[in-house]
């Protein structure tokens, strides 16, 4: 399989074989080598604030319960009874003192211990060793400033090392304001008949599709400039933004104007007032580059493999694979806790209008991503390639930013790094074989100056 994987992606020329979207054997290997190995987003701490609060999610295709403990820590378990495998929790979220299986009544406490077994003495004759039948915990659970991640691989790097220099950009949401961050609203879940990599690719680097695929939506709601991107792709300002990659497989698109995250808000005034009232605070906390240029700007952050968050547009999304040609796309709205309630309400409302299930932009993407997947399934199309070969070799260092950086939001630089990371994981037998790189790390840049 590895020889095959080596041929399927060429990140120097920006070529991918369409088989990576349609071959079921490749998908099975992704579940093992990507979803079974990488740190995966589980929950934001704001979604399970109190003891006993739980949230159900997925790691790959595995059903997971994440639950806040009495001591405030967070644990995660497979949502599967250790007796006969039944699902022990059926709700999306809630609060529980125990999870009791509907099948035979085994019950598990929030720390995963098997707490009760009906007829334990009468029918098991007191011979069941309960300590061996606790819920199966996710191997590692860790937090980065409110984001809880889980990982199945005991040999993975720490979450902080895994995130690497992407933390520089994550902090623009998680740590810009003293009150921190929150996810708002229930989960908007949607089935898409697409391979999971295609929506990730779409948001991680593809500013090119915005002015074309979303021309109608942009005409309907755009109120401010976004790096010169125009309806019908008639122009672009490559100096107005950055495509940042080379950070352990994580990618960022960022405008540099400090306001354009709200370009698709029909009435951005209340949010612009919030930004201006607090900008100095953010500059004090994160410095001039992030405080002035990035906070408030259109920023697309992709954490490999399946998490995307767009501070500004304020949507936060995870793609759960559901077979080689299907995903569930889960979306929440993002906010800073210091935002006035009226601004939070506006963010929720704007999500309905733009990137919710009925959002104008999502209407366009769903159609394109499903069709790209379908056009990889034919006998002939499965043998064909697709390309992310825009602006090859035009990247480098930018003062004040980490990463290998190409100019502008319209470039296919980030997608090439995404597929490069995909290939690195798919070819590696274990974490030791997965390369770690934080190109142009700010720590190294400072050392150079010193």
């Amino acid at each position, binding site marked *: 399989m590895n020889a095959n994987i080596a041929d399927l992606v060429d990140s120097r020329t920006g070529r991918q074989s369409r088989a990576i979207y349609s071959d079921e054997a490749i998908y099975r290997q992704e579940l093992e080598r990507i979803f079974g190995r990488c740190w995966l987003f589980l929950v934001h701490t704001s979604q399970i604030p109190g003891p006993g609060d739980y949230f159900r999610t997925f790691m790959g295709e595995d059903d997971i319960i994440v639950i806040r403990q009495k001591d405030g820590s967070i644990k995660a378990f497979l949502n599967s009874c250790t007796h006969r495998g039944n699902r022990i929790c*059926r*709700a*999306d*979220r*809630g*609060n529980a003192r125990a999870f009791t299986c509907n099948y035979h009544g085994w019950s598990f406490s929030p720390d995963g211990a098997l707490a009760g077994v009906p007829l334990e003495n009468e029918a098991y004759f007191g011979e069941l060793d309960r300590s061996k039948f606790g819920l199966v915990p996710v191997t590692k659970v860790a937090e980065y400033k409110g984001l809880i991640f889980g990982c199945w691989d005991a040999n993975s790097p720490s979450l902080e090392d895994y995130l690497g220099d992407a933390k520089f950009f994550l902090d623009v949401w998680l740590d810009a304001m003293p009150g921190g961050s929150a996810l*708002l*609203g*229930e*989960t*908007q*879940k*949607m*089935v*898409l*008949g697409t391979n999971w990599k295609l929506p990730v690719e779409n948001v991680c680097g593809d500013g090119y599709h915005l002015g074309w*695929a979303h*021309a*109608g*939506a942009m*005409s*309907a*709601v755009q109120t401010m400039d976004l790096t010169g991107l125009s*309806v*019908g792709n008639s122009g672009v300002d490559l100096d107005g933004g950055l495509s940042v990659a080379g950070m352990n497989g994580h990618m960022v698109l960022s405008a540099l104007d400090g306001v354009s995250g709200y370009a698709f808000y*029909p009435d951005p005034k209340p949010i612009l007032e919030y930004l201006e009232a607090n900008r100095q605070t953010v500059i004090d906390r994160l410095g001039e580059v992030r405080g002035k240029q990035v906070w408030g700007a259109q920023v697309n952050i992709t954490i490999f493999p399946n998490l995307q968050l767009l501070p500004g547009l304020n949507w936060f999304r995870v793609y759960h694979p559901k077979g080689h040609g299907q995903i*569930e796309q889960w979306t*929440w*709205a993002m906010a800073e806790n210091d935002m006035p309630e009226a601004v939070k*309400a506006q963010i*929720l*409302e704007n*999500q*309905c*209008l733009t990137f*919710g*299930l*009925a959002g*104008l932009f*999502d*209407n*366009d993407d*769903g*159609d*394109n991503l*499903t069709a790209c997947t379908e056009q990889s399934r034919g006998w002939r199309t499965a043998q064909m390639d697709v390309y992310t070969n825009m602006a090859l070799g035009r990247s480098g260092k930018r003062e004040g930013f980490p990463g290998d950086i190409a100019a502008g939001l319209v470039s296919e630089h980030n997608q090439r790094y995404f597929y490069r990371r995909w290939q690195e994981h798919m070819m590696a037998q274990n974490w030791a074989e997965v390369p770690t790189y934080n190109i142009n790390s700010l720590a190294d840049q400072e050392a150079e100056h010193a």
Partner: protein
Amino acid sequence: MTDTATLERPAVAAAASLELTHALTQTLYREARMLDDENYKAWTEMLAEDLHYHMPGIETRYRRDKTDQVTDLTRMAYYNDSKPEILKRLSRLDTGTAWSEDPATRYTHIVTNIEVEHTEKTDEFRVFSNFYAYRNRNERDEDSLIGNRIDIWRQTGEGFQLVKRRAILKHNVMLSKNLNIYI
């Protein structure tokens, strides 16, 4: 919001006359026909200026969880729109560049289980109905959206206008790739 009638049904509500029930039933059927035909100009003329159009998202919760997922407007919704927002959505279709709407989606709206009641406002009526909205697109894309609606319709000089609508879908995971539909 208001000096308009509430969607919440009082303990005792007065059923409307046969004549009024017939008039509003015909109004709902006409509205469904406008939506099937994508005649959004005629449809939006049926919407009051102070419209609130709400379609909450529904999570799966245990019965003991009393979280209000339906009427709490600070929660997530698929639609939580005023009339200007509806018009903004529709303006996308007029740009000629909403590529994903061409070829057109084929819609059928079926409206049933209509009940009409008087409200605390003499010119506003509470109308319960169920809907079955069918979509078919391209070659094989199809889905069925089924649920309940509660509306407030206002009698005006130019016929009835929709003032409030709460449409409750039954989905948890939406089994299709978008909601390019009004219900």
